[in-house]
Structure formats: structure tokens, C-alpha cells
């Protein structure tokens, strides 16, 4: 008789699709088959020696389970087919999951079907910082089946004021390690996919394609444009949020019918015009507020329920506790989502946003060590501090305080013949100040690399860092 081997098992049967044996019963025939091809045994039989539950054996076209099983008599000319079962289904919730999600399951808008949708949905969080923390926690708690997180940072003490994913003991650890541990602890029924990398033009499409939607928790313009363009190109919704001090913004971009981030901001602001949260600060609660709203929009999209924040920009002013909404229109001439797009693949976003301008790299610089040597040697230096007054109160080097925004109208306070060293917290704002002053005729002005933070880390360890 002939035994037909299905394609997946042929590699264990010398790549043959059929084997001839001479036997009296089905059991004997199968025994001869595995004697000839021992590798097949573990694929056909369980540990207890019984046929595996998903392996069906048909004598001609009858299931041997409904005949005499192994003892079924066979005749010359019969065929035996080994057929692994073919089955599946959308989703199954275990008893533990049903209990866990019971407050969702009793809601008409979610129910078993909705919870199944959440379980089979895949959401990418770009950034595991202020926005990413509440976002990832709530998505995990809600039962989003696959959560991707892109981050390459290490937990810093200054993160703990708002990044609730981390505890004090995590300072110094990789954010992804702590995040994955915390999220798995919160909900073990999920797949967490960490990407320990900086999202870039090289990897963004590969990463974004693995998910159904993206939530943008980034804090810089270059990555924001990158996320937007990648989402438009991959046709994935982009839940956008941004924060500054007491203010937040929220919208859903890159849906076919709605606008994208570029429709709202075709060009990035000039570098340095919009201060980052590190420079300008942020109320610790703000990313919580905005991140949870982003999570809400992401869940609505995954469930296919409600009216998503498409074509609307929500403006949050926590100081007044007022919410306003602006209508956004899709720009038919948008270079990425318009009717005749000119951006069809990812570009160099650092260059686009001017964050790697040549001027910024050409300005004269001085390290904190060199500055210390020059000061100790009694060199006549004029220290210019371009931070804000409240930062000056935390720590200072005794420099003359002119916040960078006031520099154009207070420039006359400075003597162009003096050797000036400008500094801020970490070197970004002072670089812009130096660039501005040199263009205004100050020939001997240098930037302190790493700012007062580097000074506190490497020269004066007694000075507070912030």
C-alpha cells in the first residue's frame, strides 16, 4: 500500500511524497513508516506514543478514528494519507484574559469582539519618554496584543518627574529594559517588541510596516517629520501629541481622508526658535494628560469606534484648563500626502530641520576643562549666561545673565572687544547665541561645550545638575 506524506513532513521522510509499505493494519503500516524514517516519529506521535491530536490519518477517504483506528485492516491497493489539521480563527481569550478585561467586555463598544480586535492589533510607540510612558502603560493594560517601542536612551534622574514607566531604581538602566520588564509585569498576555535604535530614514519603514498604527511620542522636529512621512508612505495612522510647559497638542494624522503633519506645518521652524522641553521645561503631568489622550485615540482606532481626532487639532492649556479645537484641512499640494506628492521616499530629516547646519558646527568652542585652565591662569574672560532667570537660581558660574531670547535687544550690554564665553545648560542655546553674536560683529566669542551641566559633571561636582 501507499502512504502519502504531506509537504511539511517530507523533509523527515527523505523528501519523498509517498512511501510503499506492505502491512496488514494501519498501525503496522505507520510503524513501518517511522521505522524507515525515524525523524518522522516525533512529528506524528506524542510522548505517550499516541498519534498527535492534530495528525489525521485517512484510509482512502475515511478517518481511521471512525474505523478501527490502528487496528483497521488494510488491503493491497489502499492508500493511507497523513493530513495535519487545518484550522484557526480570529482570536481566543483565555479565562484569565476574560477576567482581566471584564470591565471592557461588558461595554457595548468593546465586548468580546472589540477585545479581540485589541488583542490582534499592533501599535508602535515611538519614544518611551514622557508621552510614551503613560501611553505604553495604558495600551498594555487595555490588552493591545502587540506593542512596539522604539528608544535608545538610558533612564536619567531628570526623567522621573514625568516618565512614570520608570522608578528611581531604574536610573542608569536602558529605558527599553525597564519598560519591557514593567509592561510584561503589568500584562503577561502581550507581545512587546523593543527596538533599541534611533528611528532613522534607513529603518523607519521596516519598523512602521510591522504595525497597524503609530503613536508619536517624540520630542524633536526631525523625528516628527520622519514619523509623519513614514506613516503616510506606509498608510498607517499617526497619533500625534506634543507638549511644552503647560500646553499640549493632539491630532490624528496620515489617514487617507485627513491631513498629515506636513499639511499643518509644511516647513519646520528655524532651528532653535522653538525651545525643547529640556530647555524650556514641561509640567510633569502634561505628558501624562496628552499621552493618555493619545492612547485613547489609538484604542478608538484599533476598535474602529467613535470619531477619531482626524482633521482636528486639539489645543490644551492646562494653566487655564481650557481645550480648544482647530479645524485642519488636507493640503492638496502637500509634498507627501497631496495629490501629486514629491516626497516618495524618506529624506534626510536632520538636514531638512536644519539641526545639523554647517554654521552650528563651525562656531569656536571651548571645553569645560579648557575654561577651568584659562580661569585659573587668570585670563580675562567675560562669561555670558544665556539661560532663563529661574535656571540661574539653580546654579550659575557668576556669568552675566541675558536669556537667549533677549539677546538681540540687550546686545549693547556686551563689549565686542572682550573675550566672551557663552554658556547655557547643555550647549544648544549658547551655540545659537554665539552664532548670532558673531554675525553681529563680536569677533572673540566662544561656546562652552556641554554647558553648565558639563561643568557640574566634570569640574565642580558639588554643583547641582538639572
Amino acid at each position, binding site marked *: 500500500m501507499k502512504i502519502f506524506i504531506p509537504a*511539511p513532513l517530507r523533509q523527515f521522510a527523505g523528501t519523498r511524497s509517498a512511501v510503499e509499505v506492505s502491512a496488514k493494519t494501519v498501525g503496522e503500516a505507520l510503524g513501518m513508516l517511522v521505522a524507515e524514517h525515524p525523524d518522522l516519529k516525533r512529528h506524528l506521535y506524542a510522548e505517550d506514543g499516541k498519534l498527535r491530536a492534530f495528525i489525521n490519518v485517512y484510509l482512502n477517504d475515511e*478517518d481511521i478514528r471512525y474505523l478501527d483506528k490502528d487496528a483497521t485492516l488494510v488491503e493491497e491497493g489502499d492508500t493511507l494519507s497523513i493530513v495535519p489539521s487545518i*484550522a484557526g*480563527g480570529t482570536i481566543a481569550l483565555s479565562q484569565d484574559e476574560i477576567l482581566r478585561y471584564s470591565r471592557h467586555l461588558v461595554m457595548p463598544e468593546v465586548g468580546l*469582539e472589540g477585545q479581540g480586535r485589541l488583542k490582534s492589533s499592533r501599535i508602535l510607540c515611538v519614544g518611551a519618554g514622557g508621552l510614551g510612558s503613560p501611553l505604553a502603560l495604558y495600551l498594555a493594560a487595555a490588552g493591545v496584543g502587540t506593542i512596539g517601542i522604539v528608544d535608545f536612551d538610558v533612564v536619567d534622574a531628570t526623567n522621573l518627574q514625568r516618565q512614570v514607566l520608570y522608578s528611581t531604581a531604574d536610573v542608569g538602566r536602558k529605558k527599553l529594559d525597564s519598560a519591557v520588564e514593567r509592561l510584561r509585569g503589568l500584562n503577561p498576555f502581550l507581545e512587546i517588541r523593543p527596538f533599541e535604535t534611533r528611528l532613522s530614514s534607513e529603518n523607519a519603514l521596516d519598523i512602521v510596516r510591522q504595525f497597524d498604527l503609530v503613536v508619536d511620542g517624540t520630542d524633536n522636529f526631525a523625528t516628527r517629520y520622519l514619523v509623519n512621512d513614514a506613516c503616510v508612505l506606509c498608510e498607517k495612522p499617526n497619533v500625534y501629541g506634543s507638549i511644552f510647559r503647560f500646553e499640549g497638542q493632539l491630532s490624528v494624522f496620515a489617514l487617507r481622508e485627513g491631513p498629515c503633519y506636513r499639511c499643518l506645518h509644511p516647513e519646520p521652524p528655524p532651528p532653535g526658535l522653538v525651545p525643547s522641553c529640556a530647555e524650556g521645561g514641561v509640567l510633569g503631568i502634561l505628558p501624562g494628560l496628552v499621552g493618555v489622550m493619545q492612547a485613547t485615540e489609538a484604542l478608538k482606532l484599533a476598535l474602529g469606534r467613535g470619531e477619531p481626532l482626524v482633521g482636528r487639532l486639539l489645543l490644551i492649556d492646562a494653566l487655564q484648563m481650557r481645550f480648544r479645537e482647530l479645524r485642519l484641512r488636507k493640503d492638496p499640494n502637500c509634498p507627501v500626502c497631496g495629490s501629486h506628492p514629491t516626497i516618495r521616499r524618506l529624506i534626510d530629516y536632520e538636514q531638512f530641520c536644519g539641526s545639523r547646519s554647517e554654521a552650528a558646527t563651525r562656531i569656536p568652542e571651548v571645553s569645560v576643562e579648557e575654561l577651568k585652565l584659562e580661569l585659573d591662569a587668570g585670563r580675562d574672560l567675560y562669561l555670558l549666561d544665556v539661560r532663563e532667570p529661574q535656571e540661574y537660581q539653580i546654579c550659575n558660574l557668576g556669568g552675566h545673565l541675558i536669556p537667549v531670547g533677549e539677546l538681540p535687544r540687550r546686545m549693547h550690554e556686551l563689549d565686542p572687544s572682550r573675550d566672551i564665553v557663552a554658556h547655557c545648560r547643555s550647549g544648544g542655546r549658547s551655540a545659537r547665541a554665539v552664532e548670532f553674536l558673531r554675525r553681529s560683529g563680536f569677533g572673540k566669542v566662544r561656546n562652552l561645550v556641554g554647558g553648565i551641566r558639563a561643568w557640574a559633571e566634570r569640574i565642580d561636582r558639588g554643583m547641582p545638575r538639572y
Partner: protein
Amino acid sequence: MVKIDEKEYEELRRHGEETYPHESCGVLLGCGEGDERVVVRIARCENVRVDSLRDRYRIDGRELVRIASAARERGEDIVGFYHSHPDHPARWSQTDLAEAHWPGCSYLITRIASGRREETNSFVLEGTGEVDKRFREEEIQVTHGNRS
């Protein structure tokens, strides 16, 4: 990668619309070499999972034996399967993985949203057995009328 002609591709997608809100299912026949499977024919199957048609499917083994034997006579082989996910994403579920036992085969899943066919994705089952099996998303190359 799985290659399939537009005619068969749209037929298997339409099958999901016809059975909506129940799951459709069927077999992909053709030939496979390395990581490439070429579908030349699809065989519609009846979903015999009577208890929960909306979210489960099972192909009757007898039907499969008949399909496999007819395919053999034409020199074809089983290279994969398809099914629909009514009102669910075209992603494999834990149930799909748990019940997948054909490594090297393509599993095509079509999302049917409110009765209309939406996206179709394909996942090839990898691994050598139950312990290490996993789905990997693969490209579907839809060809246009290369055959009559």
C-alpha cells in the same frame, strides 16, 4: 513569497465576502520551491466548525484528502491555505498559530469589514515542529493574467 494570479487572488478574497459574517476557508494548490510558492489554483472548502463559524474555521480532513489526491493527479501540491477574518484585522491570531501544522506553507488571511473585503496578508509557517513554529509575514506577488 507567494505568487498568485489576480483571478485566484480575488476569488479567495470574494469567498470571504460570500460567507460573511462567517469565516471562509480554502486550500492553495501549486508548487513550491525554496521560499517561493506559486499558486495555480484555489480550492474552496466548507467551514465545518459549526459551533463558532464567526470566529473559527476548520477544513474537513476528508475534503482535504480529496483535494490533495486530485491535485496530485495534476502534478500539483498543497502550498498553503486561506481564510477570512470577519471584522478582524488580517493578522494571524494565537488560535491561528496554535492550530497551524503545515510548516513551509503560506497562510493567507483576508480581513472582511462589514461584509467588504479589505487587506489580505500572507504568513509563512516556519520552524520544524510544534515547539519552534512561528509565522513570518511574507510578500504576496499578484500576477496579472500570465496564464489563460
